[in-house]
């Protein structure tokens, strides 16, 4: 199934969205030049070397060797079956395959799913320095702009300056924040946060946590405890748990996703620093192994530098150098 037909079947009854989606794609197709185009000019008719180069493009995006090899093998198969040997069509097929792979793992949705009644809780986790706190500020702005009442909870009591950092964003956004003391128990800050959310009827509570490497059992246990305290205070909370992945992350990203999934129920990935030159291919490996959807992408340090994840644009970008 080609991309367009796949999309059509996906949106069978929503003709308008198909149109919009296809139009959007048209645009990115215009940008979809550079490396792939040069490649296809160079080859026109593809040979083995061409597939090697495509594999290289994928590996250099951090998608991982095994997924890259698997994808290219499928590409070879399908191009043979469909008797495609034109470089441009091969490239289309590659994007199709990646797209279908992603969609076959589950739904592609982005916005926070709000709880019917009572506060919706979003827990934000990840390794050190990936952009948790900044992403929280961006998300807070996004939902404040949608007229949601947002509350921040500064449960990173460990890293020097972390509380002040979130506090600064809260001040700039003029939203409520719950803080504890430096080196205090983060779970008790989370507890206070849940209490405050109920008292003030917040729509969205976002809990910042300290960066932690997934191999540190003590810190992972601490996260489990934060999670439990939240669940105890608000039924079904946290409703969303976002794992923040830095676009520069290599193969370790999968280990991160696995380990964090063991202590919390990760409902989405946010990929940050996509304004840099890294392709962030590891999110496809994470999707492949753990089916976690990508919800948002970070494109800079400012409050507005957050976009909904757009799979087709992302995939085209991935293949462009």
């Amino acid at each position, binding site marked *: 199934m080609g991309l367009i037909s796949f999309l059509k079947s996906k949106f069978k009854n929503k003709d308008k969205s198909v149109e919009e989606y296809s139009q959007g794609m048209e645009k990115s197709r215009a940008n979809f030049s550079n490396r792939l185009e040069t490649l296809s000019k160079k080859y026109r008719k593809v040979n083995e070397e061409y597939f090697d180069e495509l594999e290289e493009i994928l590996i250099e995006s951090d998608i991982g060797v095994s997924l890259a090899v698997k994808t290219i093998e499928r590409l070879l198969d399908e191009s043979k079956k469909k008797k495609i040997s034109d470089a441009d069509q091969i490239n289309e097929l590659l994007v199709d395959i990646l797209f279908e792979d992603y969609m076959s793992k589950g739904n592609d949705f982005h916005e926070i799913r709000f709880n019917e009644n009572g506060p919706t809780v979003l827990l934000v986790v990840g390794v050190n*320095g990936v952009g948790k706190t900044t992403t929280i500020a961006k998300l807070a702005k996004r939902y404040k702009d949608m007229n949601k009442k947002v509350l921040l909870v500064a449960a990173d009591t460990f890293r020097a300056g972390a509380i002040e950092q979130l506090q600064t964003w809260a001040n700039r956004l003029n939203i409520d924040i719950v803080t504890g003391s430096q080196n205090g128990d983060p779970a008790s800050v989370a507890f206070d946060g849940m209490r405050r959310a109920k008292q003030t009827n917040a729509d969205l509570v976002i809990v910042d946590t300290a960066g932690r490497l997934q191999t540190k059992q003590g810190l992972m246990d601490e996260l489990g405890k934060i999670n439990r305290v939240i669940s105890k205070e608000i039924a079904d909370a946290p409703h969303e748990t976002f794992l923040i992945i830095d676009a520069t992350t290599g193969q370790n990203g999968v280990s991160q996703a696995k380990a964090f999934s063991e202590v919390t129920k990760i409902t989405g990935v946010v990929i940050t620093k996509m304004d840099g030159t890294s392709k962030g291919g590891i999110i496809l490996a994470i999707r492949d192994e753990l089916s976690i959807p990508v919800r948002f992408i970070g494109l800079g340090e400012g409050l507005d530098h957050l976009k909904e994840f757009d799979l087709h644009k992302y995939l085209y970008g991935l293949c462009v150098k």
Partner: protein
Amino acid sequence: MAFESLTDKLSGIFKKLKGQARLTESNMDEMLKEIRVALLEADVNFKVVKEFINNVKEKAIGQDVLKQLNPSQMIVKIVHDELEQLLGSGENEINYQKNRPTVIMLVGLQGSGKTTTAGKLAYLMKNKLNKKVLLAACDVYRPAAIDQLEQIANDINVPVVNMGTNVSPVEISKAAYKKAFDDHFDVLIIDTAGRLQIDEQLMDELNHIKLSINPDEVLLLVDAMSGQDAVNVASAFNEKISLTGVVMSKLDGDARGGAALSVKHITNVPIKFSGIGEKIVDLDIFHADRMADRILGMGDVMTLVEKAQEEIDEKDAKKTVNKMMSGKFDLDDMLEQMKKVQKMGSLGGLLKLVPGMPKVSPEQLAHSEKEMKNFEIIINSMTKEERKNPAIFKYSRKIRVANGSGKTVADVNRVLKKFEQTKEMMKQMESYKKSGRMPPGFNGKFPGMF
């Protein structure tokens, strides 16, 4: 991702090649393919892997396979040695100035660990090297970055030049340098804001800081978890502001850290430090051998060495025992033996994994490393005759050796005592070997160790 151990994969291939005594293009190819995958899985950049593998191939072709290794192990050994050599090359000391403050500037992408490392470096230099250290807070962009540095500095009692967020980083660093100079600080550490290497404006800013204070060290922070793009980041920073060193951060996680190889290969800038935790003390000098193990997947090389060691040691041990029995075991032999054991110890806790080996703590290891260095210095100050026949040592000879090596007579005595112990131990070993039993508590303790 489950990494099948490299040695496992290779040994499968090896079965087909059993008995081949020389490395050739064809018998290496399949093995090199596996090594290529291992390096890519460790996040070494694709192009770097290509070049690296080609270099290894050229080096390896025609080499005889060491007696105690099989061809696949031989290849891993060559790869490992090459990795270690590449990673470890270059001057990795900080160059301290005598008549003015030494200026160290930390640069890198957002979230790579600059501020934490600034604190760790300050702590190390202040507490371990007795330097008078000043920090400068030049990250005026990220909210509360200055608070972060202030808090860290406060904990370790190091002053900070903090001019708020309304002064340009160039002005702050100039003022900091003036203060460091006027107040006779030994070291000034500049913490800069994280930035993308493609952000021209911010890269220009770094360059301005550099031009205005002329730092002795410009250190790039590289996250151990970085993927393929680390090469582009490192080469852009290097081109713009000429790096003098790299610090690998977050090595306490389980990332294989292939970025270290990528960055070193592309920039040839020496890797000077490793960040190994969030605490202020968690900074170590960079160990190329450990990094090579890690990139290849720790266990692999250890298995290799373990296997090789079994054979080498048995042969060596026999030789040593023979020497001893014939009264020829001397101080040189002892030193050589200590070095061998030491080398195994440095291979990332190999000792812990060898059955029957005593448990060794890092402190013990560090201690024995130091002890061995001392022994070496002392033994090198002896005459050939003394080394061959330590029995001739009298007080006057001891004084001469002590003076010559800059040690004390007590130190010399320690060497001689160790020699006697080792001899004794080996004698016992030999007799137990004959009886087929090891004494309890003896537990395969290597002669010459501890």
